[in-house]
């Protein structure tokens, strides 16, 4: 087989001694976001804590309703009523974002913290040309001439692999394919070289070959600029190839966190193990998938104690009390009374 296709899956050299002493770009501590409905407060995010360092890629994995998107929105201060952040702290480059003024958040959004969404049409205005939108995004945060802004927009489109950027600048979003639109959204997100990029399932709606192109570009751009990246997804396989660390969410809480290779190889939490077993994999072709019985509980009616206990093969009486996040060797943590034992690496 020609080398070209032999999955240039060469491992990326990862700084083994990640500068842990350096203060993280983002430190989320005990974040809780609730939605106040007629049926009472629903905690979509419930005591979530994590950090992201400069240049690091954190995969935030969970199924529908696990609170992963609300976590992303909370960081940007984009949770709309009836939802609001009810507790915890979000420190971005040392600055507290919970309770920060709308004006301050507006200054940060798009400049220091950027977000890309599953549907790029959430970012793009369908009735404005691409150049108008990109130039607006630049001049919103910087005083530059129209000409200089246009030049930067052009360079940004080139950087995300869009051919003939001059023509593309003069086009409207509907003239782009889905993959192209997502590229434009990424180009806009990276215009100001943000310190933090939050990507909410940006490749879920795309075909695999296009997904692969987008992943390649985001990966390279973040590596070049040292942007910290939070990649929110339901797809463990994408995280496996992209992220440094992974945090698995279930029912509003992070249930397991750690380096991505270690977590996927030896999950501690029964939910993580169930998720991995649910993914059809090369090694188990044709065999029944290890399914998790039942379905995720509604955040409005969480079981008491550990939210996963009703579906968990290891649950017992202790699980009626909610477990805390406990540390495990190898820079890992899990929220479980009965985590799977780690086989000590010889």
């Amino acid at each position, binding site marked *: *087989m*020609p080398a*070209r*296709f*032999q*999955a*240039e*899956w*060469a*491992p*990326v050299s*990862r700084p083994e001694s990640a500068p842990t002493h350096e203060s993280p770009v983002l430190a989320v501590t005990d974040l809780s976001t609730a939605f106040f409905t007629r049926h009472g407060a629903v905690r979509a995010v419930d005591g979530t804590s994590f950090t992201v360092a400069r240049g690091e890629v954190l995969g935030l994995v969970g*199924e*529908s309703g696990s609170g992963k998107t609300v976590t992303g929105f909370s960081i940007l201060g984009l949770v709309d009523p009836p939802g609001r952040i009810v507790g915890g702290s979000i420190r971005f480059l040392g600055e507290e974002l919970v309770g920060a003024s709308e004006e301050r958040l507006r200054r940060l959004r798009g400049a220091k913290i950027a977000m890309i969404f599953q549907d790029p049409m959430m970012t793009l205005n369908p009735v404005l040309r691409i150049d108008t939108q990109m130039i607006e995004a630049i001049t919103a945060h910087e005083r530059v001439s129209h000409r200089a802004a246009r030049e930067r927009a052009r360079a940004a489109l080139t950087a995300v692999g869009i051919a003939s950027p001059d023509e593309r600048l003069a086009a409207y979003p509907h003239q782009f*394919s889905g*993959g*192209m639109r997502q590229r434009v959204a990424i180009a806009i997100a990276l215009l100001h070289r943000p310190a933090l990029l939050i990507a909410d399932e940006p490749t879920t709606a795309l*075909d*695999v*070959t*296009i*997904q*692969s*192109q987008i*992943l*390649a570009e985001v*990966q390279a751009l973040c590596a070049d600029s040292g942007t910290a990246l939070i990649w929110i997804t*339901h*797809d*463990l*396989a*994408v995280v*496996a*190839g*992209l*992220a*440094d660390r992974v945090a698995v969410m279930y029912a509003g809480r992070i249930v397991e966190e750690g380096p*991505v*290779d270690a977590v*996927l190889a030896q999950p501690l939490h029964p939910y993580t193990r*169930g*998720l*991995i*077993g*649910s*993914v*059809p*994999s*090369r*090694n*188990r*072709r*044709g065999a*029944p*998938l*290890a*399914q*998790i019985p039942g*379905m*995720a509980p509604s955040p409005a009616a969480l079981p008491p104690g550990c939210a996963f206990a009703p579906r968990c093969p290891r649950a017992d009486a202790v699980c009626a009390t909610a477990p805390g996040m406990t540390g495990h060797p190898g820079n890992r943590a899990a929220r479980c009374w009965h985590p799977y034992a780690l086989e000590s690496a010889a």
Partner: protein
Amino acid sequence: MSEPIIALEHVSKRFVTPLDLAAQAANLFGAGLREVAVQAVDDVSFAVAEGEVVGLAGESGCGKSTLGRIVADILPPSAGTVQFRGKPRDTLEGAAARAAALKVQMIFQDPMASLNPRMRVADIVGEAPVVHGIVTRAERRDYVDSLLARVGLDPRYATRYPHQFSGGQRARIGIARALAVKPDFIVCDESVAALDVSIQAQILNLFMELRRDLKLTYLFISHDLGVVEHLSDRVVIMYLGRVVEIAPTEALFRAPNHPYTRALLANVPRLEAKKQRFAPIAGEIPSPLDPPAGCHFHPRCPFAMARCKAEAPALTEIAPGHRSACHLNAA
């Protein structure tokens, strides 16, 4: 191999948007406007044997759903024939045609779009078997209960409406409805694509159980190669309306032949993968309105030769049961 249950012979499907009145008028004055046609499926031939699971994979716009609908007899092919148990389906008439139609059922991607929101589950599942005389009206209730239990739903929910169910449960209702008329062959069109992985695993396991217990044959359409690999005995890869490769699953994933298949496989994210540099193939899928001449893949293919631009490669056997449409194999 046992006799094919479904055999496609040179099946094609063209969708044509007729000219509107203004365009017709303009043509009277010599504007030369032409109808817009999409060749959604282009000369596809393959057979599915009794009891087999054939996976049909490809990216958006490759024609896999159109082909699925042709197999399920929802769309007529523009050219070519579909044989059901050795008989061309368009020659069947009356009771034989109805019986053949019942034996091939389809399960759709979006259960909310394919389940009538105003019907109770008992009616959604129970209507067809009564109409077709499979059960009597008196037996209907028990029959529906047994079907719901078969797909893992509590029969007490039979009086509920589709919106009262979760996505995974709706998928089960869609499966129960397809099973209600005792089909031999089921076309699954992206039937698990919208589900969370843990729910998807439950439904995939259900598909495999049903296959074993009811001796079903599947045409399993999916863009997700992991799912296709897990479930299928053979895999058909399509690109812009044409089949580019057909092979037993094992052979296809171990030694893909067509450059498009190789690129597709190299781009599938895998759990086993370590952190990697993604190495995508360049370009996007061309518009099916105006596909490239010759081999449709040549503008994105790293090995394209002059011949690829002029001449569409035929699907030729490169190993027993393994066929691929690429000029490289002839060179």
